[in-house]
């Protein structure tokens, strides 16, 4: 697998290897004091700041409804779909302010998102889904990138003519990641890639994510509920609760933190959870924010 990784890198980057070495590495994201409101009434995110450095894998952990997906939508510029609005704060990517940019401009800058639940173009074939991922690229580049995707996910090469809606969940996730790679991104934001998949498939997907980061130098922002899995490959992590960042630190710090262990990794200090502990944690969370 590692033998073919060099051409893969060449093909996937948008500027080729020369540019890659000539410039500073790309794929840095900074979100500062972001506030998002839905329907001008419901505040989904408040005062959130995160930072992702080029080449990092950063995990964003949180339970259902914590605001993870909202944050990703804000970053990708697709909030408007559900009457969401950025009230204040700044999102900058590679030093460019993208807060008010449209989705396609952000893609052109090299930031791609793999949305929650895959969201493939169900009636389109695998090949056509990949084409759509590379909508902004030209035909020759597309062919090269497609080869890389098939090399990463050999299964997709076999199924390239199939209607993507009929693939299995794991295969669909592969198409979703492959589709994002077709744009030649520097930064990949993955929204719950393990959702609803069998452990063995999750294993494969995570192996690919790690490879994308290590071999191709992609920056990864990993949104997960599956904290253990995510912290296993992340450099740094944020915990978001009820629209606020309540904790952040390196993966090691997070794994060591008692509360994170208890509530996200399912490991209790004493082995038994008491109501008092929960209350204590909730109070802490409030205090932290």
């Amino acid at each position: 697998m590692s033998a073919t990784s060099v051409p893969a890198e060449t093909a996937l980057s948008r500027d080729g290897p020369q540019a890659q070495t000539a410039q500073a590495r790309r794929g840095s994201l900074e979100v500062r004091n972001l506030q998002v409101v839905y329907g001008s009434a419901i505040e989904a995110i408040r005062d959130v700041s995160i930072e992702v450095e080029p080449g990092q894998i950063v995990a964003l952990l949180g339970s259902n409804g914590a605001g993870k997906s909202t944050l990703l939508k804000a970053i990708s510029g697709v909030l408007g779909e559900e009457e969401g609005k950025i009230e204040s704060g700044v999102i900058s990517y590679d030093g460019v302010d993208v807060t008010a940019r449209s989705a396609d401009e952000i893609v052109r800058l090299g930031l791609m998102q793999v949305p929650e639940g895959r969201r493939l173009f169900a009636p389109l074939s695998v090949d056509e889904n990949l084409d759509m991922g590379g909508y902004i690229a030209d035909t020759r580049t597309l062919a090269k990138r497609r080869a890389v995707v098939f090399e990463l996910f050999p299964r997709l090469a076999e199924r390239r003519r199939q209607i993507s809606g009929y693939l299995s969940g794991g295969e669909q996730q592969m198409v979703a990641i492959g589709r994002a790679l077709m744009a030649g991104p520097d930064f990949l934001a993955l929204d719950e890639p393990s959702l609803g998949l069998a452990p063995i498939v999750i294993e494969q997907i995570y192996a690919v994510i790690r490879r994308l980061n290590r071999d191709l130098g992609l920056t990864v922002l990993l949104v997960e509920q599956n904290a253990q899995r995510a912290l296993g490959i992340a450099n740094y992590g944020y915990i978001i609760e009820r629209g606020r960042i309540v904790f952040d630190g390196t993966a090691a710090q997070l794994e060591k933190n008692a509360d994170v262990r208890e509530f996200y990794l399912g490991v209790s200090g004493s082995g038994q959870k008491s109501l008092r502990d929960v209350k204590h944690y909730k109070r802490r969370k409030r205090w932290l924010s």
Partner: protein
Amino acid sequence: MRSGHFKERTEQLIVLSDSAPVWAWSAVLVVALAAAPYLLNAYLLSFVVLILITATGALGLHLLTGRTGLISLGHVGFLLLGAYAYAVPVAKYGLSPFVGFALAGTAPALVSVLVGIPSLRLKGLYLAITTLAFSFIIAHLVLQMSWLTNGARGIQVPRPEMFGISFDSDIRFAQLCLFVATITLFGVLNIERSRVGRALMAVRDNDIAARTMGINLQAYKLRAFMTSAFVSGIAGALFGIYLSFVTVEGFPFLMSIEALAILIVGGLGSTLGVVFGSIFIVLLPEVGRTALSLLGENAAKLFSTGANELRSVLYGVAIILFLRFEPRGLVGLWGDRKRLWVNWPLRF
């Protein structure tokens, strides 16, 4: 205006209204409407009558489209059926208006089963199309069965006489329409807060989930169809009486579209919206007329024979602009005002 009021118990949620001011204002409205016939001239009264009939018909559609989420593009078919089901026995065979109104409700309701059965398989626009097709087929059959319906000649419909009251005068007829519209409105509000009403809403919002919760989809959809057709049929009968002359031409396809427009302009899914929407759509052409006449004779001369078409253009533009700036309908606008009041000056 009350603020900071929350409903905490189911009873509070399903009661028609737990607010004394709402009841009081409703009473004022009813009294005003009851008094209106005595105070208005025949022209203004005819708008009131038209609004009442339109609202009744639109409430019928509302039960189907607004509450159950089944789009109908052919509701004019039920109106037409209702009008004929009233006109044929009453005007042609001299039967009592009671029989006429009973048939005006039941005939469309029975026919709606025929339309409803396909609906059990179809979704969204495909269903809408079968209802559209149905309305054309109904019109065709009415024209063909001239032994019963007088075909294209139409039937002259007299004003009814019931309970020993002659509804011949405009005032009495307006009162009849007010009575029917009020009964219908209360009926619809009552259906909404019943088990059936909640089931219908569940069907609208997610029919697969509704089924898993033990709601018999087919039965409920059919029931929605039948109730809707019944109400629309009664409205059709009233409309026929209002027109005093029932023909297929008096019920053009455009009426189906206008009925949908009423729901959307009012705010889809809202019963109050149906009332707002009916008022808006019935009065809109009149607003255009007034606006143009305010421009004076010169404007009329400027456009020569085109002045009326210009009014028609304005009507279309008004609908577009309205939806552009208030896609949630009049009820949305109303809700905004209310929220502004309640939440001001703290927005979150």
